[in-house]
C-alpha cells in the first residue's frame, strides 16, 4: 500500500487496523536468479536496484537475523560526500545524489536531514589537508566551504575556542551532508524490494556455499539449500566468515566501533561536527539524543560491544570539543562489527569465482554509501562490469598497487 498523509488519515479513522505488512514473509523458493547474502542496508538496496533498474525479478535476500540487524541499525546515521581521493569522491557523491531523491523513490520517509557537516581543523597542516580535500570535492562538482575561526564562533558558539589543548582554527563545511534515520533506510529499501517481488528471508543463516565445477550453485542455509545463478555477498562485519565458505580469503579484519547516544535534549546542536584533534563526531537526532562516536576500539572483534577505555577517551574528546557536554548524560553505548579493509576503502567487485560477487570493506563508513553501494553492486551483478563511479573499488587493487588510502597509513586496518 502506498504511504501518504491521506493514507494515514484514512487508516487512523479505521483505528489503524487496516495497515498491511511492510513486506511479506516468504518461504524460500528452490532457486533464484540472484541470492544476496545479508539483509542490511547494502543487501536490501542491492536487491531493490537490481529489481527496479536492471530488470532482475527473481531475487532473494537471505538474512541470518532480522532485516536491518547489522550495521545499518547501529551506525551514527551520517551521510556525506566529503572525500579526497579520486577513487572515492565520485562514488560517495553519486550516493549523496541518490539519498537526495530516496524518499520519493521509495515512498518512505528516511528522514534525510541535510544539516551540513563541519570538519574542524586545529593547525596549519590540517588546514592544508582539508583544503586539498575541499578542492578535490569541488573538482567533482561538490560544494564545499572553508570556515574561519570567527565564522565558526558565530555558528557554533558552544565549541571550545578558549581552553582547548589544540585550538580550533577553522573548518570545512559540506552543506549537503547530514543524517538520515538509519532503520528507516533498511525498511524503506526492504519494502521497496518486496513490492518489486524480491523475497526477503529473515532468520535464515547461510551455513555453506555450494560450488560445482568451480561455479556457485547455491547456498546451504538454516532453511535448507537454495539454488541461484549468481550469489552476491553483502555481509559486512562477517564478510570473511561468509567468504571463507566459498574459499575466499579477503583483505579484511573485523573490528568493533562504538557509538553512543545521550538522553533526549531540546535542539542544541544543528550540524554534524567532527573534531580534528581526535576522531570525535556528534550530531543530534530528531528525537533529541546526541549521537556520537570516535575511533574504532582497535582490535579484532566480532563482539558487538566496546570497551570502557575507548568510551572514556571518546568522552574526553567530546568535552574538550564542546565543554557544555560535560553535564549531559550518556544513555547508551553500543558496538558494531566493521569490515576494516587494508586501505580503509570498500570493495565492490567480482571474485575469482565467476558468479560470486563481493560487496565489503565498508570500514566505519558504510551507511552513507548505502544507495550507491546497492546501485553499483546491482550494476555489477546485472552487467558483469563495474559502474564507472565504483571502478576503483577493486579486490585486486592491493596486489596491483592501487590502494585508496584516505588516511595515508598503509595496510594496517586499525589505523584507518
Amino acid at each position: 500500500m502506498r504511504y501518504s498523509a491521506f493514507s494515514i488519515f484514512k487508516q487512523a479513522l479505521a483505528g489503524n487496523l487496516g495497515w498491511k505488512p511492510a513486506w511479506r514473509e516468504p518461504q524460500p523458493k528452490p532457486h533464484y536468479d540472484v541470492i544476496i547474502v545479508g539483509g542490511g542496508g547494502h543487501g536490501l538496496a542491492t536487491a531493490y536496484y537490481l529489481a527496479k533498474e536492471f530488470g532482475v525479478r527473481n531475487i532473494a535476500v537471505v538474512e541470518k537475523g532480522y532485516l536491518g540487524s547489522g550495521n545499518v541499525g547501529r551506525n551514527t546515521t551520517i551521510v556525506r560526500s566529503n572525500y579526497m581521493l579520486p577513487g572515492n569522491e565520485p562514488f560517495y557523491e553519486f550516493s549523496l545524489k541518490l539519498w537526495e531523491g530516496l524518499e520519493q523513490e521509495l515512498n518512505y520517509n528516511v528522514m534525510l536531514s541535510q544539516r551540513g557537516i563541519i570538519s574542524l581543523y586545529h593547525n596549519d597542516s590540517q588546514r592544508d589537508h582539508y583544503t586539498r580535500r575541499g578542492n578535490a570535492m569541488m573538482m567533482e562538482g561538490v560544494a564545499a566551504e572553508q570556515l574561519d575561526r570567527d565564522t565558526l564562533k558565530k555558528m557554533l558558539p558552544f565549541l571550545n575556542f578558549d581552553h582547548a589543548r589544540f585550538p580550533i582554527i577553522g573548518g570545512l563545511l559540506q552543506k549537503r551532508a547530514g543524517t538520515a534515520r538509519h532503520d528507516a533506510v533498511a525498511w524503506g529499501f526492504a519494502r521497496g524490494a518486496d513490492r518489486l517481488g524480491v523475497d526477503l528471508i529473515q532468520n535464515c543463516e547461510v551455513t555453506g556455499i555450494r560450488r560445482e565445477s568451480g561455479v556457485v550453485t547455491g547456498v546451504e542455509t538454516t532453511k535448507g539449500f537454495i539454488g541461484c545463478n549468481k550469489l552476491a555477498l553483502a555481509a559486512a562485519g562477517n564478510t570473511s566468515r561468509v567468504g571463507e565458505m566459498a574459499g575466499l580469503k579477503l583483505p579484511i579484519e573485523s573490528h568493533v566501533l562504538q557509538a553512543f547516544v545521550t538522553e533526549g535534549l531540546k535542539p542544541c546542536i544543528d550540524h554534524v561536527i567532527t573534531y580534528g584533534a581526535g576522531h570525535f563526531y556528534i550530531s543530534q537526532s530528531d528525537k533529541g539524543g546526541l549521537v556520537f562516536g570516535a575511533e574504532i576500539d582497535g582490535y579484532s572483534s566480532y563482539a558487538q560491544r566496546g570497551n570502557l577505555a575507548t568510551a572514556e577517551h571518546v568522552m574526553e574528546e567530546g568535552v574538550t570539543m564542546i565543554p557544555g557536554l560535560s553535564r549531559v548524560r550518556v544513555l547508551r553505548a553500543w558496538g558494531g562489527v566493521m569490515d576494516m579493509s587494508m586501505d580503509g576503502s570498500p570493495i565492490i567487485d567480482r571474485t575469482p569465482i565467476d558468479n560470486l560477487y563481493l560487496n565489503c570493506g565498508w570500514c566505519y563508513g558504510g551507511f552513507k554509501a548505502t544507495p550507491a553501494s546497492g546501485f553499483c553492486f546491482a550494476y555489477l551483478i546485472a552487467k558483469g562490469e563495474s559502474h564507472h563511479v565504483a571502478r576503483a573499488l577493486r579486490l585486486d587493487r592491493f596486489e596491483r598497487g592501487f590502494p585508496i588510502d584516505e588516511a595515508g597509513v598503509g595496510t594496517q586496518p586499525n589505523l584507518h
Partner: protein
Amino acid sequence: MASLIPCPHCGTRPRQEFSVRGDATPVRPAPMAADEVWNDYMHVRANPRGRIREHWQHIAGCRRWLVVERDNFTHEVFSVSDASLEQGGAR
C-alpha cells in the same frame, strides 16, 4: 582483553597501556618469495571468529611486542607471550 592484558613481563595491566597492530599469524616472507606470498602476507587475513593471535605492544610499559592469543568474540585471553619467542629467536 579489552580491559586488562596480562603482560608476561609486567603483570596484568589496563588496555590503555597497550597498542594493537593486528593479526600475528602472517610471517614475513623471504625477500624473493613469490608475489602471491607477499600479497598474502601484506593484505590477506583469515579473520576467523574465535581463537586468534594478535600483535600488541606494551607501549607504556616494557615496550615489548606481545602475541596475545585470544577469542575475538568472547574476548577471553588464552595466552600472552613475548613476540620474539615466536620464531625461536634470541632476545
